[in-house]
Structures are given as C-alpha cells and as structure tokens.
C-alpha cells in the first residue's frame, strides 16, 4: 500500500498537534495537511467519478469542510481524523454518483474505441503488454466491479487507508471488508489474466456499458 506519509524521508509529524496548529491558524500546518491528504482524496475521487474536474470539486469541498470545522472548533480529534475525512469524501462522492446515475448515459466514439481496445487485449497471451496497457486494463476492470467491491479497492489503494479505518468509514465489520477485498482482488486477477469475464459486463454503474454491448453485437455479426 502506498501512502503519502514520510515525505522526503522526513519523519511525519503526529496528527493531533498538526491539527491543533492548523486550527490555531498556522499556515504551514495547513499546508502539511493538504500535502498529506490532498492527493489521496483526489485520487479516490478521480477513480470513483472518472472526471478530474469533479475530483477537484470534491477534494476542495472536503478541505473547505475541514477548514470550517477546525475554525469553528467543531472537530475534536480522537484519533479518527482520517476516517472522518474520508467519510466526508465518500459522502460527497456518493452524492455525485447518485446525481450522475439519474441522467441518461450515451456512448460516444471515444468510449467505444477505448472499450474496444481493452476488450481485444483480454486473453492475449502472445503479445507482451506493457505496464501502461496493463494499468488501462486494470482501470477498466476496477470500474467493472460492484460498488461494494470497488469502494474497498479504491479506499485501500487510492485512499491509502488501513482496513480498520475503512471499517470506520464504511461502517462494516473488518472481516467483511477483508473478504470483500480478497474477492475483488481475485476478480481483478482473473480479468488481467484473461480468465474472467470482461469487467464491465454486469456492472451496474459503468458508463461504458452501452459501448461494450455495441462491441458484443459487432462481434456477433
């Protein structure tokens, strides 16, 4: 798991005093908070929403909430700052996804082309694929997971959270999350190795679903 901690090899300041200094108006402490969590939140939101601008909006909104709560003295640090921060982020992300799902989704040529590229590469054992194309396939595969599995994967890897923190954020038992993570990894592995179904099929939230359906029709012709 990758975290933003220990930047530049410097020891990371403990969170409670850092929050205290940020609440007291210390600009440097605030910048440290942004450095520590900004990219993690952005990556989580971007992976979930597939839109960099939306990811910026959500990230900024979360930090605005932090400023507001700290300044008003409404946040009491009890060792769960990260969980609280990511819960706020997840709520914003879910709100956004709910709004998007109410709107009809149309496949455009770019989506079709991307999906077609991903689809034809599955199961290709003769061609040596680069890490970059593997990552693209993995990205597609993650989008094809169920919401519950995808949240665990994205909080864990993009958000850099521990399972205990994820249990706080998602309000699920630790064992459930571990099992879900294991199941999601297996699905992703199967897709990457070409042994599983194409990832987006069966996904309830995938924008490229119409494109994949079109590809499937084309293959059947």
């Amino acid at each position, binding site marked *: 798991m990758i975290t*933003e901690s220990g930047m530049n090899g410097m020891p990371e300041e403990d969170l409670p005093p850092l929050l205290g200094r940020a609440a007291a108006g210390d600009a440097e402490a605030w910048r440290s908070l*942004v450095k520590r969590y900004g*990219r993690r939140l*952005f*990556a989580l939101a971007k992976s979930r929403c597939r839109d960099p601008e939306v990811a910026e909006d959500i990230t900024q*909104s979360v930090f605005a909430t932090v400023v507001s709560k700290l300044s008003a003295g409404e946040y009491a640090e009890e060792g769960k700052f990260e969980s609280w921060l990511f819960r706020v982020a997840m709520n914003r992300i879910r709100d956004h996804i709910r709004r998007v799902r109410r709107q009809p989704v149309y496949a455009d040529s770019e989506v079709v082309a991307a999906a077609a590229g991903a689809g034809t590469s599955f199961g290709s054992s003769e061609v040596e694929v680069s890490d970059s194309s593997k*990552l693209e396939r993995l990205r597609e595969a993650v989008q094809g997971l169920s919401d519950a599995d995808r949240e665990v994967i994205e909080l864990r890897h993009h958000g850099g959270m521990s399972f205990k923190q994820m249990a706080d954020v998602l309000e699920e038992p630790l064992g459930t999350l571990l099992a879900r993570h294991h199941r999601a990894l*297996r699905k992703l592995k199967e897709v*990457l190795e070409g042994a599983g179904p194409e990832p987006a099929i069966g996904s309830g939230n995938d924008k490229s679903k119409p494109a994949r359906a079109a590809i499937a029709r084309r293959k059947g012709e």
Partner: protein
Amino acid sequence: MLEGRVSEMKDTTETAPEEFAEVTRLLDSLATRERQSMPAAFEGRLAALHDTRAVRQPRGETEPPAMRLVHPAVGRDAPAPSKRPVRGSSIRIAAAIGLASAVLATIFAGRVAPSGGLGGASLATGLGATTLESDLELDVERLLAVYAAFDGDSAFDLPMILDDAGAFGESVKSGTSPDGDWMEESL
C-alpha cells in the same frame, strides 16, 4: 511529483496474499498515477483555502486560538457561513445572483415606495437615509459573507457587484438620481 513511498502494512490482517502480489502492485501503480495527475496549481488552491480565510489570533488574547473568517479584500471579520459548504458552481452563481438581486430590490423598493416615483430626493424624505443605509450595510454584509465563503471561484464576480451596489448606494445617499439605463442594466 508524488512523494509517496511503499509503507509497511499496519497490521498482520492487512497482508495481501502472495497470489495477488502482481494485482496489488498494479493497483498501487494505478493509484500513484491518479495521485500524480492532481495539478500542482490545485494543491496551491487547497493551501490557499486556509491562507485566505484564516488569521492568527492576536497576541494577548485570553481565548483559545482559533481561526477567524476574514474577507480578504477588507481585512475584517465576516460572518461564518451558517450552512455547510455548497457544492457546484451553479448553486454558487444562484446564491450570488439572489443576494445581489435582494440588494438591488431593497434599494429599488425604497426608492419607489415613498413617492411612487424614481426621484432621488424622495428616498431621504420618505424612508430616511439612515434606514436605507442600514439596510444596505446588512445586505452588503451578506454579500461579503458569501464572497468570503466562495472566494477563489471564478464563476462570478462579486466585487464588481459590490462596487455597483456601493456606487448606487452612494448616489442615493447623496440625493443624486442615477439614470434609468443604469438601473435597468443593474437589474
């Protein structure tokens, strides 16, 4: 550039099975790529969220230090937003337009009510300059609060609206009558 590192697992229950080592590695690479894609300028904007809204507590204060919301242009305290941060620039624009309209509607109503006309002098004799002035100050305060809350959003230009409202208020207080075109454009 991302300055992350591969950290140790926080407890033994978090150890990924060996069979998923490659998938885990790729997932971490993907996450790294997503983090790296965050624009540096955006990180600066996040840092500025604090810089533009908070000041240190003056020395000698007996109260515990706390950040105060400050309007960056005038350097004085602005009322804290009573609601949680609003998402979406369309909502922000609507809020700005609504408040600006409230200011102008207040001014307009004050001008036409006493005399039934748009004569500049009628305002002072009808409602009284003090009443209008306090109304204006109240609405400008509300505008300032919204501006302080959404400072940095380029979707609307509240300083310009404030300037217009201020100029109009001044002309009303001084008894000069702004021409009709100005009023129409503002509304």
